């Protein structure tokens, strides 16, 4: 017997290929008894038929004319120019014309020299200086035309050819393009004067998504290069600092190449790489609080106190992701098991990241989407305000919780019934027992008296906690608001201003100056030990989990959510509609500018940073954020 969902999937599948006869019969049997599935089947068949019946329109003469003009122009730029075809290959044809003129001028002088040689050899020295100026002027004028007049589609190649000598130019890919015979005639010394101005006109390669091009054009390459010179990239984690690649510094003596329209244009990959380096801008250098308002630096213990290093402030786009258990290959997630088939990012034809695949609704994730995105112990994404603070289950299946019917009593439940887990003290000062959590087969209970509190540890068996023992006397305190379990250690904030940490059948407290923690998140596999992060008012605190009150990093931010990278070396914060990554020195990098989107929650998986867009209801992943 097949389920409704299976029936719907099969109904869809048979639109694409016939089902196995046995499966088809099962489906038919189900449809015969299920109105909902039968209606979906009918709708699917009508959709298919309707799509096939959609009318078509004839070819467009305009498109034919314009495409073929450009194709033919690529075949013979000079013919295209002479015939007035000036669409996409205008820059190419201008370059060709310039080269032809150059040949003509050189030829003229050659003939002229031959003439004087044959008539008056003494004239040679007077005339010899002229040719070196005239071609230079010709080419310089041509370069100006190319930089200002070349239309978008093929402007990239021509403009780049004139930009090459500038260290800030983005034309390095063309430096490897074999120059045409025409290009080799161009004097290398004539290109420098136009390089700077030309480089501000960053052209757009056709194979590059336009949003990338928009980012490129928004930056001034010269300024970027200047800032890069002051960057100290070694101070920033590699994932945050795209190191300048060798291709970013072209050889000043490189001979400019005039690219033919034969496909040897800059590859999209190369352009993208250049684009990303251009998008990288250095943050200003200075002391904390001066140039990085809102960042308070805590001495991480490595001698870098107070230092705000220059870091790239790079804005990237986000990829959409496929849902858990979806249709793509598994991508490891935090937890290392369970539903880790999470991320898929389509690639465009040019190998750049496509944004088209925004198909995952957060409605597919369990839990209330108004809560924060998290992972279960099995690595499954879930919306939850961890923890629920009421029910805990041991590894051998006993459930501990507060008894509904008996206020202040902790009970243990088997499959069939629940009973009080601890005997109620005869002491008249006893007020209540609070379940704090379990770790393996060990249960932790906070027993509160009117004048003191105790942490009791024991092992639930049957409906009892056997061998209960007081492991910590807390003095006067009241019940914590919540407790948090991370990797077998249980954490609770006590109203007395302390963290209560329970692990290995023991418990201890540690003072904290950051009261009333909310949205507590852990990075249990941090390189230097587990980390914990939480908001305390408008301060985001990151600390070693073993001492949550001693901050490694504090950020004054009103973020709605944050998460620590799995290695524990970065923190992602939703700040307004932006997503910002901080390293542990407080250096920041904006990785997503929200615009119309409204990031509501963020989760750092091993495959990258995932965020929830409250506006669209979709999940996205930010590229290049895998730790």
């Amino acid at each position, binding site marked *: 017997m097949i389920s409704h*969902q299976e029936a*719907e999937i099969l109904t*869809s599948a048979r*639109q*694409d290929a016939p089902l196995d006869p046995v499966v088809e019969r099962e489906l038919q049997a189900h449809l015969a008894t299920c109105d*909902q599935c*039968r*209606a*979906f089947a*009918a*709708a*699917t068949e*009508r*959709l*298919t*038929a*309707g*799509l096939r*019946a*959609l009318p*078509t*329109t*004839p*070819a*467009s003469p305009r*498109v*034919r004319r*314009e*495409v073929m003009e*450009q*194709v033919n122009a*690529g*075949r013979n730029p000079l013919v295209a120019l002479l015939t007035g075809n000036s669409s996409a290959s205008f820059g190419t044809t201008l370059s060709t014309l310039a080269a032809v003129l150059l040949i003509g001028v050189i030829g003229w002088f050659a003939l002229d020299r031959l003439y004087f040689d044959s008539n008056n050899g003494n004239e040679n020295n007077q005339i010899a200086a002229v040719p070196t100026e005239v071609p230079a002027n010709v080419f310089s004028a041509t370069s100006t035309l190319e930089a200002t007049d070349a239309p978008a589609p093929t402007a990239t190649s021509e403009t780049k050819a004139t930009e090459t000598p500038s260290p800030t130019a983005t034309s390095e890919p063309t430096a490897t393009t074999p120059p045409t015979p025409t290009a080799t005639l161009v004097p290398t010394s004539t290109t420098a004067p136009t390089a700077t101005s030309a480089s501000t006109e960053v052209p757009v390669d*056709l*194979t590059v998504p*336009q*949003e990338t091009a928009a980012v490129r054009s928004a930056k001034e390459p010269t300024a970027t290069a200047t800032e890069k010179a002051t960057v100290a990239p070694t101070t920033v984690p590699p994932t945050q600092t795209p190191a300048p690649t060798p291709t970013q510094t072209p050889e000043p003596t490189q001979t400019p190449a005039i690219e033919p*329209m*034969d*496909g*040897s244009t800059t590859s999209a990959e190369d352009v993208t790489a250049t684009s990303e380096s251009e998008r990288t801008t250095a943050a200003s250098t200075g002391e904390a609080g001066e140039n990085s308002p809102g960042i308070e630096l805590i001495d991480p213990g490595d001698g870098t106190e107070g230092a705000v290093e220059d870091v790239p402030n790079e804005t990237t786009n986000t990829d959409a992701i496929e*849902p858990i258990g979806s*249709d793509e*290959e598994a991508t490891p997630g935090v937890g290392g098991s369970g539903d880790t088939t999470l991320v898929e990012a*389509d*690639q*465009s*034809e040019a190998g750049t990241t*496509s*944004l*088209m695949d*925004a*198909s995952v*609704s957060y*409605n*597919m994730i369990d839990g209330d989407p108004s809560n924060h995105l998290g992972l279960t112990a099995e690595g499954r994404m879930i919306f939850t305000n961890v923890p629920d603070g009421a029910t805990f289950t041991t590894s051998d299946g006993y459930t501990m919780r507060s008894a509904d019917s008996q206020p202040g009593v902790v009970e243990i439940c088997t499959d069939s019934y629940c009973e009080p887990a601890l005997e109620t003290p005869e002491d008249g000062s006893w007020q209540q027992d609070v379940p704090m959590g379990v770790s393996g087969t060990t249960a932790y209970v906070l027993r509160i008296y009117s004048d003191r509190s105790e942490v009791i540890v024991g092992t639930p068996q049957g409906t009892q906690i056997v061998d209960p023992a007081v492991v910590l006397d807390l003095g006067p305190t009241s019940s914590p608001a919540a407790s948090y379990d991370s990797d077998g250690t249980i954490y609770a904030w006590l109203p007395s201003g302390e963290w209560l940490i329970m692990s290995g059948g023991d418990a201890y407290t540690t003072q904290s100056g950051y009261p009333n923690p909310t949205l507590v998140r852990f990075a249990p596999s941090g390189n230097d030990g587990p980390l914990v992060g939480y908001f305390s008012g408008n301060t985001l605190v990151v600390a070693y989990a073993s001492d949550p009150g001693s901050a490694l990093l504090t950020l004054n931010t009103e973020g709605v959510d944050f998460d620590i990278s799995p290695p524990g070396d970065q923190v992602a914060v939703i700040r307004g509609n932006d997503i910002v990554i901080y390293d542990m020195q407080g250096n920041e990098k904006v990785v997503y500018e929200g615009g*119309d989107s409204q990031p509501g929650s963020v989760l750092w998986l091993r495959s990258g940073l995932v965020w929830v867009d409250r506006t*669209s*209801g*979709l999940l996205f992943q930010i590229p290049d954020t895998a730790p």
Partner: protein
Amino acid sequence: MLTDDRHLVERARAGDADAFGVLFEHYHAPILNYLNRMVSDRALAEDLTQDTFIKAYKSLPKTDPDLAFKAWLYRIATNTAISHLRRGKIVRWLPFVGEHETRAERIDSQVTRTSDISAALDQLPKHYASILLLRHYQGLSLAETAQALDITENAAKLRLFRARKAFAKIYEDSPLSGEEDLR
């Protein structure tokens, strides 16, 4: 598909503009129609078609010899359309349809009306619209559809399923559906 597609692609890759011209003539109208359905704007679709073929012409020499030209061309077209729509911020995103939320029984035969199909396509997330159009309007095989979207065939099957569910949901919530209830 042209019977000598591969030969033409080989020649076009080598820079033969005439060969590319033949390929263009064959795929020009289908790509235009596909893009027209994607963006619902004939003039814009023509511009995007032009962009698609120019990109293809420029990129062809860099492709592998065993290129699946048709799927590759549709991939360029799809990405071109999506990129354009995103720049204009007119890509429509809709929440995914819940598994058991569709009251598909309310969808009747009027769904086959062209205007209804078009209206529903306009409301679909573009990656759903594109896969439905590629598969059923353009008649690409499942493998070609997957190639055109640069996803696996299994991913294509799942996306088709979701697209159909989303379509049913949109149609269910459409004014037309509401009119049906009032009768």
